[in-house]
């Protein structure tokens, strides 16, 4: 007669492993927040005690008023027209500083729009990146007046 022997199970029970793993996946998927981690680099001019003196006439002044109204060298202008206006000036002097001066009450996004537009000068056919300068109110008060 054959003796029936109770054979012990020689397998590692792994069926619940996947459950645990998927639980962890769900946790990571729920807690991961896809955030905006991209933006524009903003070159700060060196905080120099003796900054180079720029005559107002040597530069292009872009004033931004609340609502996004632009005044470039005293001429009202639309955002898309700035580069065309700058082209002949910058061809003569590619280092010509372009100063962005938003009004204190201007919404921040309008300043970013203008800055973004000027940064794309090379895509619009300029030979060199535009020398953009965004002076802060403190600098304007201490050096311009």
């Amino acid at each position, binding site marked *: 007669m054959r003796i029936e022997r109770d054979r012990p199970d020689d397998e590692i029970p792994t069926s619940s492993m996947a459950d645990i793993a998927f639980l962890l996946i769900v946790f990571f998927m729920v807690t991961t927040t896809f955030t905006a981690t991209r933006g524009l680099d903003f070159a700060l001019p060196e905080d120099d005690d003796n900054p180079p003196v720029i005559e107002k006439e040597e530069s292009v002044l872009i004033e931004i008023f609340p609502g996004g109204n632009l005044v470039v060298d005293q001429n009202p202008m639309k955002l898309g027209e700035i580069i065309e206006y700058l082209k002949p000036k910058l061809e003569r002097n590619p280092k010509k500083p372009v100063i962005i001066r938003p009004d204190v009450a201007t919404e921040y996004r309008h300043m*970013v729009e203008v800055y973004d537009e000027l940064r794309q000068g090379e895509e619009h056919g300029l030979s060199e990146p535009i020398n953009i300068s965004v002076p*802060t109110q403190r600098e304007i008060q201490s050096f311009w007046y």
Partner: protein
Amino acid sequence: MKLKASIEHKPNIPTASMADIAFLLIIFFMLTITFEVDKTQVQLPKTTLRYEIPKKAAYVSVDPNGRIRVSDGNSQSSLVSAADEVLSMAATVIATDPQKTFVVKSDGDVPWEKVDEVLDALKRAKVRDLRLLSDQRTVDDL
């Protein structure tokens, strides 16, 4: 003649590799996860040009009400009452790491005056690498 009993097949789904796949996904999520240091809800300005911001950057956020929060990139952002506190925080961070990236995360409708104060503080703290956080501008925005 005695018929041979048919071999009984136990229904079995092979799940051994399931855990491997799952753990692979876990490792992927663990490596890609970045803990947000600043949870301020803002409507970012939109730009055409956007560049990747390095991880562990210090954040200065300005919410729609003009409240400023700062984070050194390691801990959660905290509310500050004036732009002068941004200067002291930035100066401390720059003292330990002069090349530290600073990110300005400001709502698009905040008056320039407020952002100007923040930029001025960062400039005085001698921040060299500054980024303006933005959303992608699409054709619909034009």
